[in-house]
Each structure stands twice: as structure tokens, then as C-alpha cells.
């Protein structure tokens, strides 16, 4: 078996050190054991079309991210979109903070942590397109500002200095936001009926 693979992101499978944990405990565990390796994140149900993703670590600090799901949501293959750059992501995948945006949001995930020798990640960690700010996964995926702060403190000074944040990438994804809104509206209306509030609906 091989580890996560995608155009431009080749990492060996490595040694499994944790399985079936939530994102928050996985990031915390990676940090406290100073994991060099990666987390494979599998949404239990991320809206309609959750896809697995990967966050890599050096000494417990997040460095890179990749998701098989495009931050652009349900775009058709072949459709033009301005996210494309570098040597061209696979249709519909996402990298760096875009990948965090694709992985973040409502719904729990299952995570497996794998350990790898540092040189196995050198190539990925050198590629700016995958790079994420050290605190971003804790903030955006686990909603854990204190872990984010600790990760930033431990990170080397030259860690990620990109400009667009995962949040900006999330907000640029109009289709994804529309999906959240539609789902919330449907849920609100269904619950209103359960609560006897349907007479108040507009």
C-alpha cells in the first residue's frame, strides 16, 4: 500500500501511530508527540461530497495540506477557474490553505496519524503551493486557538508566509457557501415543524 498520492504530492505510507481520532485530538497528539509525518483526514460526512485530505507535520507543527476536494466545490471538470496555478492541480483538488478550507466546516472527521522520516516529506515541504501557516489547521479545522498559538511558537521563523488565508479561500467559494446556506435553511424548516414553530416561518 502507498500513502496519499496526488499529482505533485507523493509521500510514502509510513507507520500508523494513531487511528480513528477526531481532528482536534489528532492535531493535539501530533503536536505533543512532535510528529513528523502526516494526518489523513476523512470527513464522516462533509456536506454532500466530502473528500479525504492530508495535513503534514514537521516536529508536530503543520506544514502542508492537500485535499482531493476542490475548494471550488462542485465545479465541472474542464470548467475554467482562476484557482489554477503552478503546474496545474488535478481537476477538483486543492492545496495549501485552499485544502484547509475544503476540509473545514461542519461535520466530524476521522483521522489517522502516520509517522515518516523527515526526508520523505522534504519535497512536499519545499513546495510553496502546499504550504499552510503553522497555526491554521488548529484554528480552521479544530477551532483550537491555544494549540494554534503553540504551533506558531514552535514553528521555525521562515514557516509559511503566504498571504491569502484559509478563511479567505473559504469565503471565495460561493458554491460551498450556498450549499451551507441551503442545508441550514432546509434543516431550520424541518426543525420548525418539529418544534411547532412552522406557523412562524416566512
Amino acid at each position, binding site marked *: 500500500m502507498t500513502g496519499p498520492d496526488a499529482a505533485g504530492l507523493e509521500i510514502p505510507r509510513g507507520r500508523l501511530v494513531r487511528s480513528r481520532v477526531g481532528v482536534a485530538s489528532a492535531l493535539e497528539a501530533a503536536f505533543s508527540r512532535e510528529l513528523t509525518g502526516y494526518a489523513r483526514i476523512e470527513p464522516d460526512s462533509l456536506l454532500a461530497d466530502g473528500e479525504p485530505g492530508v495535513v503534514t507535520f514537521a516536529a508536530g507543527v503543520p506544514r502542508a495540506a492537500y485535499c482531493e476536494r476542490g475548494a471550488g466545490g462542485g465545479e465541472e471538470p474542464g470548467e475554467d477557474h482562476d484557482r489554477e496555478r503552478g503546474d496545474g492541480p488535478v481537476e477538483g483538488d486543492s492545496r495549501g490553505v485552499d485544502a484547509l478550507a475544503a476540509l*473545514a*466546516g461542519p461535520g466530524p472527521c476521522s483521522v489517522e496519524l502516520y509517522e515518516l522520516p523527515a526526508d520523505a516529506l522534504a519535497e512536499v515541504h519545499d513546495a510553496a503551493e502546499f504550504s499552510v501557516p503553522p497555526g491554521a489547521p488548529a484554528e*480552521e479545522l479544530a477551532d483550537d486557538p491555544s494549540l494554534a498559538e503553540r504551533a506558531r511558537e514552535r514553528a521555525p521563523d521562515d514557516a509559511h508566509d503566504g498571504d491569502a488565508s484559509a*478563511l479567505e479561500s*473559504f469565503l471565495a467559494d460561493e458554491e460551498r457557501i450556498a450549499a451551507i446556506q441551503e442545508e441550514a435553511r432546509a434543516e*431550520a424548516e424541518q426543525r420548525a415543524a418539529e418544534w411547532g414553530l412552522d406557523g412562524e*416561518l416566512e
Partner: protein
Amino acid sequence: MVEALAVASGKGGVGKTTSTLALGMALADDHDVTVVDADTGMANLCFHTGLADADTTLQDLLLAESDAAVEDAVYDRFGLSLVPCGTSLAAFREADPTRLRAVVAELAADTDVLLLDSAAALGSQSAVLPLVLADRTVVVLQPTIPSLSDGLKVQEYARSYGTETAGVLFNRVQDDEAIDRVADQAEQYFGGPTLATVPESDAARAARRAGEPLLAHAPDSAAAAAYRRAADRLDLQDGDEGAVADRFRSAVIPEPP
């Protein structure tokens, strides 16, 4: 009565109670303001206002057999009329959330601005009721994806009851440059403008520890100034007093036990 606003977030701990009290105090310069702790499941307004030992609270008013008068649960503090909610779990279980309507109707009759500090959750009738009752919402956000997506969700819940967004507050902001871009982007999805971006602030934490609203504890802090700007930017809409009270009073079928 001018307007009833629900202060909501969808997500816990983003600063709803801090923001409700800060907006309330800023608005109180020009208006009569009543703040109700409508977060009946996780009441904490009392801890921000030194009212943890209040004798009569909203919880008493929500009990079916209660003989407490609404005015008994109103405390004049910090230039506001405050209606704290007790934190007894037993009383929460026995409470009839639909009585909130009558309580709010009575309070609405003699105040200009009614602020409802709302629950973080959306999973029960009592949590959603403030969104149903309010004229509009103020959505409190932290600049993170989980908070934004919960904020969008709460907006959608409110909208399904015809309650539009009056404005958005970004709280606990650390990156001044990025927040302007984020706020710009967010504005296209929210029904109201960004009222202010409130910095991460030691003063806000200290105020909570002291059991005082931020604007009383640290009126000169940057965070307090941001809330005053938010209050200025909030254009209150004159509601029809009778219609508001009617809406509050209209009956609902109680939640099944």
C-alpha cells in the same frame, strides 16, 4: 419600542454576551436599553454583570406556576435594564420556553431597544426562539472558518423566520490587515454591514473576571471604542409597538417533553 435585536453566533464562546452588553451600553447613551439573557440553557450574562446572586431571574418567569412579576427580574445596572437568567438545571428543565414571548412582550412595551443574548446552539425550541421573536439579528463572528460557517447557519435559521441580519461584528481579531479583506468578502453573504471589528483584548477578559461589562470596566480600551463604533453604525429601525407585542404574544404549541 424601537427594535428587538437577537445577538447570535451559532458557535459558543465567540463573545456574544460581551458584545450584547457592550452594544447595549453604547446604545444606552441615546436610548432606553433592556438586555435579556435569552441563552436560557447556558445563561452567563449574570457573570458578566455581577448578578450571579440575583433573587429573581428569567428562569422564575418561565416557570408555569410562577407568580413572579416581570419587573422583579429587571435590574438597573450600568445604565441598562438587565434581565439575567438563572443557571439552575432543574429550573431550565421545568421552564416553559414559550413563556419567553409574554415576558419579552411586556419588556418591549417600555424600552427602546431590546437586546436578546441568544444561545450558541440551534438544537432546541428554546435556543431558536430569540431568533423567531427578534426583529433583526446581530451576528457575532470570530475570523475563523468554523465561526463563519456557523454564523451563516444562524443567519439562515433566523431568515427562515423572517428575521434579517442587522449587521455583523467580528470579535477577537488579531490580524488587522487580513480582517479588512475577510470583512469585505463576508459582506456579500450577510444581510447587514460589518458593524465593527473588535480586537482580541485583555480588557475584555479582565472585565469578565471582574464581573463587569467591558464598557464599564475599560471604557477607554480599543475594544470598547470598536463597540461604540458598532453602535453608531447600527441603524435602528422604528418598529410598530403594537405589532411587535402581538408577534411576541402569539401562541405556539409547547415543545413535547
